[in-house]
């Protein structure tokens, strides 16, 4: 007797929604980051590092791991480096000009020597101050949160952090010729509620940073 109705016993293929696919992609990105261990040694001038080794920050919780270490792109230091170079060349041109014009400073030689030494010390101080302002402006993405450490011109120091589930939106802006050439831009992290928003200014590979943070959020959401 022929069957009137035969139930379909073959398992139906799971149709994934576009959102689910994106979720999987983001999770795979996060996994790639968390398993890749190459090139993660921090150097003195590092501005982008995935899973950095030997970095500790205040309030680092047990089991929490740093996934991304970010600083402003090195090229953004160019203005003060150029200023320092010009300032360090200025006395040389000044003395050459004085010699060419046949002018003599109305000061004893030891005064001129000490003043020149002091001038270069001030230039060195300027360079050092700008360098530490860059060096200690660090943004971190860990397995649990996003941390923004700001330090500016000795007088401003702030540490802000937000947990990954509290992040609502992550976006980046890359505007200008230099950011396009050197691949850097601003990454803004918007948080829920009254928590303050974060801005990682001029960080390298902003697109990658956004993907990684989104991946971590997705991973955190699924677990």
């Amino acid at each position, binding site marked *: 007797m022929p069957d009137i109705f035969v139930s379909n016993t073959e398992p139906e293929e799971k149709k994934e929604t576009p959102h689910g696919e994106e979720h999987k992609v983001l999770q795979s990105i996060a996994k790639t980051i968390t398993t890749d261990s190459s090139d993660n040694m*921090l*150097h*003195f001038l590092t501005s982008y590092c995935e899973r*950095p080794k*030997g*970095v*500790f*920050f*205040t309030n680092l919780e047990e089991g929490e791991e740093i996934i991304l270490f970010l600083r402003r792109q090195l090229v953004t230091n160019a203005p003060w480096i150029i200023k320092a170079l010009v300032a360090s060349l200025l006395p040389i041109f000044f003395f050459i000009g004085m010699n060419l014009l046949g002018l003599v400073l109305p*000061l*004893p030689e*030891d*005064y001129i020597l*000490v*003043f020149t*030494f*002091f001038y270069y*010390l*001030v230039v*060195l*101080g300027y360079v*050092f*101050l700008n360098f*530490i302002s860059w*060096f*200690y402006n*660090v943004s971190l993405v860990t397995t649990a949160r996003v941390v923004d*450490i700001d*330090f500016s011109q*000795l007088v401003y*120091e702030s*540490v802000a952090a937000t947990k990954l589930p509290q992040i609502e939106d992550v976006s980046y802006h890359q505007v200008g010729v230099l950011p396009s050439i050197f691949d850097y831009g601003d990454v803004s992290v918007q948080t829920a509620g009254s928590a303050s928003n974060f801005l990682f200014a001029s960080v390298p590979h902003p697109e990658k940073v956004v993907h990684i943070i989104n991946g971590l959020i997705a991973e955190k959401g699924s677990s």
Partner: protein
Amino acid sequence: MFELFQNALLTLVLIKILFLVISFIFTIFLLVVLKQVNSMNRVINEASSGLLIYISILLILLSAVLFLTALVIL
């Protein structure tokens, strides 16, 4: 002539005092920088952070040497 010489000498002494005050303030400023570097190293610490402490100590030493040199030879 003597008055002119006296005025020049007075100017040099004033310059010396001014320079000593400025270099002293600069040394104090560098001490503040060292304190801040030390404080930031506690907030975020990485392998190369220690080098910055050495550099700031070196700058303070240079500034102190300059202050003493100015005090002695000017």
